[in-house]
């Protein structure tokens, strides 16, 4: 099943993904607080990572939810929160090792990426093509190719 993959070597932190996500969810604002994807920029360390839910196959947030408000969408494989059922206990936020679940201070429920019904807006707005909506294996294949090319280049230079 497809997930949103992030290539940190391409992201420039333009934040179009956050703006699009915020509007897709709120229908009213592009403010960053409403966005489920977060571009984490640590300027001192020069680290830049666009991060959103990876929809774990064994989702700890789902396992831990006492209200059974978290379930998997059979069509898109997205792990989704039913805000009607959510008790706002925040256990899912504690459980997620990536910090990909957020708390809606107005509705008092947990909130997260739902893959926009299989057409994630963050990916369509990623002008640097750092985000892809693809099978995890496709990402792995590109990573292999990248490292292979680098290896080949090194070997070529070394054997000169």
């Amino acid at each position: 099943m497809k997930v949103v993959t992030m290539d940190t070597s391409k992201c420039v932190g333009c934040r179009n993904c956050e703006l699009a996500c915020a509007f897709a969810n709120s229908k009213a604002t592009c403010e960053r607080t409403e966005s489920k994807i977060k571009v984490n920029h640590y300027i001192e360390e020069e680290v830049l990572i666009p991060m959103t839910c990876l929809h774990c196959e064994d989702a700890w947030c789902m396992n831990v939810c006492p209200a059974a408000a978290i379930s998997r969408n059979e069509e898109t494989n997205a792990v989704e929160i039913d805000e009607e059922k959510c008790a706002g206990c925040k256990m899912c936020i504690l459980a997620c090792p990536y910090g990909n679940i957020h708390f809606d201070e107005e509705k008092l429920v947990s909130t997260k990426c739902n893959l926009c019904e299989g057409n994630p807006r963050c990916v369509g707005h990623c002008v640097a093509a750092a985000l892809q909506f693809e099978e995890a294996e496709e990402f792995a294949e590109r990573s292999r190719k990248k490292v292979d090319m680098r290896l080949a280049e090194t070997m070529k230079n070394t054997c000169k």
Partner: protein
Amino acid sequence: MGERTVVKTTCRMCGTLCGIDAHIEDNKVVHIEGNKDSVLNKGRICIKGSSAVTWLNHPDRLYKPLKKMENGEFVEIEMEQAMDEIAEKLTGIQKQYGDNAIGVWKGEGIDFAQQEELARRWIHSVGSPNYFSNDTQCFASRYLSFNLVYGCWPQADYDNSKMIINWGTNAPISHSYWMQQINNGRETGATLVVIDTRYTDIARQADIFIKIKPGTDAALAWGIIREMIKRDELDHEFIDNFTVGFDELKAYAEQYTFEKVKEITGVDSKYITQMVDAIAKARPQVSSWAGTGLEHQSNGVNSIRSVTMIDALAGAIDRKGGMKTPAGFGMRGLTIYDEKPLLELEPIGAKKYPVLYERRQECHTLMLMDQVLSSDPYPFKGLVMTAANPVLTNANTGKVEAALEALDLLVVKDLFLTETAKMADYVLPAASYLEREEVYCNSGKQAAFITGKYVDNGLQTEYEMFKGLAERMGAGDYFPWADDHELTEWLLEPTGYTVADLKTNPSGFIFGEYEYEKHRRKVANGEKAFNTPTGKVELFSEYLVEKGIEGLNGVPEYHDPAYVQQNDPAYPYLMITGARVQKFFHGRYRNIEQLRKANPDGCLEIHPEDAKELGIVDGEKIKITSRVGSIETFAKVVHEKEIIRGAVQHTHGYVNQNINYLTYDDVTDPVSGFPALKSIQIKIEKL
């Protein structure tokens, strides 16, 4: 709910022109996303693109012409009445003050490929040479610079490059799909160099990031050129056969020692060494792009020319992975400069900026304001604007307002009642990019695109306005085409293609694969290798020498920017204006509620040490003042990495923090006449 159709068309929310899928329902656009088949953006768009749904359906859009009454209030009138009255007033002004007392001004509020030439055609057809546009504050200066050196408006071949040098430009924000091309190049080994005063978005991925003092880029370029020559990292075959002026260039470069460059630019010599190391490995696959960071300087043209010299010495011009010199589509032009040049009527600015007029036929918007106010050398009384908003976007807003106020007639055609439209005597509602047909070409991909009328609100197109005015002013013969579509077919005729052909691929109709190294074939055929006076890449420009512009020689010498030459200690901070933000395009889109909420106000980016010295904290309201004006705005204390000390940045286009009240219209580049918008001396006060 009606049936939903999806049309592949072109985004017009900025000048980048990405391919989009527009979802139309009941004569209304309801959703926009990137067109995955587009040869340009491959399915990805920025937030402006998708937010067009809100913008185009905005309740404040104009659908009826407005006329300003004696009491200053607008009343709605019928289109026929508006057109009759406007034409009568324009003719009246011409009779009373002379044919050249009127002009037309093309802006970017609607963005339309045929808008520029239609405006040029119309104003000449009615007897005035005074065509103005936004291009004399963005684009024309870069065009002139590249054109003076190698005779075209090039495209960086980022996809195939081994070294990408970005000077004062931030692709992901300003030309979004270029970022994909840059990343393609990087993925196959290109070194990315970013040279800027600010740590911009693209700088975050740079292999080499060089933080430089504003307006000093040319000195760094000369340091690099000197080092390339010293280390003999030159493409001798290309230089010998396809350039002129190498000896002059070499002699001039001599003085730019590491020490001198550091003194001028603040850049350590290790960066020059790193860059020349990278050039040595990459050449000829070196592609440089210079943005408005260089263009908006008092030495802008020479700075950009200097930068292009690096590509020339590396043999990168018209080479794979270097700088493409694209072929055109061969469409007809609409201008009538050959049959009606009207030079004797003194196009405004043509005498002072002869290169700008000869090469671009652009009159000078800043000089226009002075002329309206002084009637020197002749009176100027009537102006028709198609979607321009100079009250927010031209230098020295105070003077712009005074000049527009002093006109006998101001007509503005736009989608909204902009700050400029509010000053107009007549406001005509404009058709948006989904409400008319146009054809445009992307030179980098050598692709043509056609758009159509997918939404119909019965609005007058730009063509209909110019045709209507021309007919009423006795120049209707110049506009024989019944409508936009007939015009498009006529424009396409010499290409051998029709609108129907182009429609077979709305994602990019490729009219010819790019031919690298065509300069060799051209020379073999006895043609000019490059479209310059000498037919070669001009490291030295005899043409510029002949123009006799004060202080200008054939080699693009570095001159200190005006703020260094005439430093005024009363204004100790150097303000860059006009850095783009991804949500807006110049004066546009602050009325898109969701974007405005995310970025409600303009602000002054300031170094933390400078803020500390001034006792200013992040978010605080402050007052900033230049020699010509003052505004209140908010401080944004950035990270020390993000800007050099002593420099600050303020983006333009905010009504409540209109930074152009502070920008100078009298500090300009001597060749292009561009204002130095990125070097404004100001003072900052705590409130």
